[in-house]
């Protein structure tokens, strides 16, 4: 038993080893305001459906970061929750015709519901085994969705999901206004993630990540905490998946395939693990790259994204956000020491 406990492999040491950065409250508030302004201005600068994609994938990446960065669990099957919610949202929206936030809520609940048994099974393992169990589960869901073509449309996908929104036609037809209608849902998801991380519950998660044996010795039920964060993470992924499917007007098998799980892990690592800010940044980079390269006439998209990923992993182990934060930290401490020298 004890051997098994100490055997827990840390998934990513780069971020876990990073010291807790505690920026002063004013800087943090300013960052938040800047981020909000950027998010509000985004559809003016970027084509609105692409901006919506960035936000949905960004929230999806946050949900992965919650597990990977703050609990030390690498889920390689998060597409299951994203896809489950995408299909459920689509199904509710087409069949019942409720406003899309309600449909997304339904999708999110469905994602959380299936996360309970998955989490229950998966959290008993860590590291690569945890990743494998989640992957296996996601694959299972993929094949079920493929077979149940009466409900899901098979590989044709569930098409024609309406953007019903209290009869406000601008939102229902114009992707620019839809962006602002869906934005609160994304912000809600980000807020939940932030609350989770910066609560006593979040401190326990960090303890579990860094030393599960000690957390257990202190009397915390490690498995239960892991299941809880797993379900919360699935819920956030579900919110993102629901927004994505409504935004595109369909849910397809692409949402459940394992490369989707891989893509969101890539975004998270690219942005920086254990930062929450990193996920959306990574998502922005990947989505914008895909969008630009698709129209560029260059026919080797995989080569570019792959090369960027390799460079990030080799040179910037902490991802974009982690590296940037380190850089600022170094300048600040440099200035601080110089300031002391002058005095």
């Amino acid at each position, binding site marked *: 038993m004890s051997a098994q406990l100490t055997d827990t492999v840390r998934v990513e040491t780069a971020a876990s080893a990073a010291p807790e950065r505690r920026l*002063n409250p*004013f*800087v943090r508030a*300013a*960052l938040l*305001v*800047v981020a909000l*302004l*950027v998010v*509000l*201005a985004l559809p*003016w*600068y970027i*084509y609105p*459906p*692409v901006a919506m*994609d960035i936000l949905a994938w960004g929230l999806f990446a946050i949900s992965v970061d919650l597990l990977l960065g703050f609990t030390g669990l690498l889920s390689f099957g998060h597409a299951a929750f994203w896809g489950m919610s995408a299909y459920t949202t689509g199904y509710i929206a087409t069949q019942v015709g409720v406003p899309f936030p309600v449909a997304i809520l339904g999708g999110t609940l469905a994602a959380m519901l299936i996360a309970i048994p998955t989490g229950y099974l998966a959290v008993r393992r860590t590291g690569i085994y945890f990743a494998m169990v989640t992957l296996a589960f996601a694959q299972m869901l993929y094949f079920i969705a*493929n*077979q149940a*073509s009466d409900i899901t*449309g*098979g*590989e*044709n*996908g569930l*098409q*024609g999901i309406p953007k019903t929104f209290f009869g406000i036609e601008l939102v229902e*037809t114009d*992707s620019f206004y839809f962006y602002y209608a869906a934005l609160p849902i994304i912000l809600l998801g980000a807020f939940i993630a932030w609350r989770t991380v910066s609560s006593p519950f979040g401190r326990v998660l960090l303890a579990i990540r860094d030393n599960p044996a000690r957390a257990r010795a202190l009397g915390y039920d490690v498995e239960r905490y892991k299941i809880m964060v797993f379900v919360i993470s699935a819920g956030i992924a579900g919110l993102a998946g629901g927004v*994505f499917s409504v935004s*595109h*007007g*369909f849910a*397809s*098998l*692409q949402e459940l395939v394992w490369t989707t799980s891989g893509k969101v892990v890539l975004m998270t690592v690219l942005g920086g693990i254990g930062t929450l800010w990193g996920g959306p940044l990574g998502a922005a980079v990947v989505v914008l790259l*895909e*969008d630009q*390269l*698709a*129209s560029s*006439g260059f*026919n*080797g*998209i*995989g080569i570019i994204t792959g090369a960027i990923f390799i460079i990030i992993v080799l040179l910037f182990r902490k991802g974009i956000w982690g590296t940037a934060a380190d850089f600022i930290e170094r300048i*600040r401490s440099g*200035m601080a020491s110089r300031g002391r020298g002058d005095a």
Partner: protein
Amino acid sequence: MRHTRMISLAAMVASSGLVLTACGSAGGGPASGGDSKLSDDKVVLGLLNDQSGVYKDLSGPNSKVAIEMAIADYKAKYGDDAVAKNIEIVMADHQNKPDIANTKAQEMYDRDKADIILDVPTSSAALAVATQAKAKKKLHINVGAATTALTGKSCNKYTFHWAYDTYMLANGTGTVLVGEGGKNWSIVYPDYAFGQDMTKSFTAAVEKGGGTVQQSIATPFPNDNFATFITKAESSKPDVIGIMAAGGDLVNFVKQYNQAGLQGKTTLAVGLMFITDIHTLGVEQFAGTTFTDAWYWNMDAESKAWADKFKEKTNTRPSFAHAGNYSAALQYLEAIQEAGTDGSDDVVAKLEGKKVNDVFLRNGEIRAGDHRVLHDAYLVKVKDKANVKEEWDYEEIIKTIPAAEAFNPTVSADCKM
């Protein structure tokens, strides 16, 4: 401390400035078209297909060449009388992903001012684009996708299905082979919607002709090892083995089928195959295989002449998807010429019910009820290597299936325009 406060203040000011300028710049509405009867004074053709993945060869970047040929032919035909003088092509790679296809289609219609989107292989991507076409009231002529849902449940006023579909593939091969004595069938299919649809259509066609499907065997998708499925399919001593896999799976299946020593013993019928598949694997591997083709470059002098021009530009022979894109672009431009405008509703009105004959469409008719384009299809047999006279000379047409029989004769009840 004071310093960081200054920095964050500056950042806030800068980003609010950003927001304000954005608000200002977004004010300008779309410019009016002036005297021209064309929206934005030009016709923009969007080409959305797979430029980097498995469908790159059968359509991909060379479809742009085909569309350019259509534009050149249109301009040559009408000269100064051409309604569309300024014609542009925009192209994007959907990577066979429906979400990217969806976003790119919106972008093409909105930002690039595309009047039409052409090609779009991969069923889920095609359906996503059809949905956008309906929402934006702009045209989509699909060439590359096989699903009958485009003219069924997902049919709409602005979407046309130009080249082929699962019904045509199954009906042609199934009916004709049964008529020639291939009464007993085993069907091997990949277990997803395309494979299931094809199996259903094939079974219906075989039974209509008086044959029987003894067994239909589902395989995982994708799959590498077909040995057990081949043994099982052969166990009932069928006259014909039908394989519904496409692309890489088809190539694997055929290799293993030949290795099992079955080539030439039992007739092999392929559900969907492109000439590029034969070229990739080598004609000797496919020799004797029967399938339905929408068009073949060497079927007559007219096609050959077009294929020669295509070869000059691309150094390769066209697949039916290339010819289909040429035809779709050409007929779209002809419809603009007739209507005198590129307004979607006017162009659709000109296209609906139109009878067409061009390089690709023979005895073609654009059915008004569901926008299925009916045209002659061809049952072909892959030649033995000894009979291949030049590169790409792979197919022998054994029967021309008339347009009226090639496609589903009735409009699907699911289709509500």
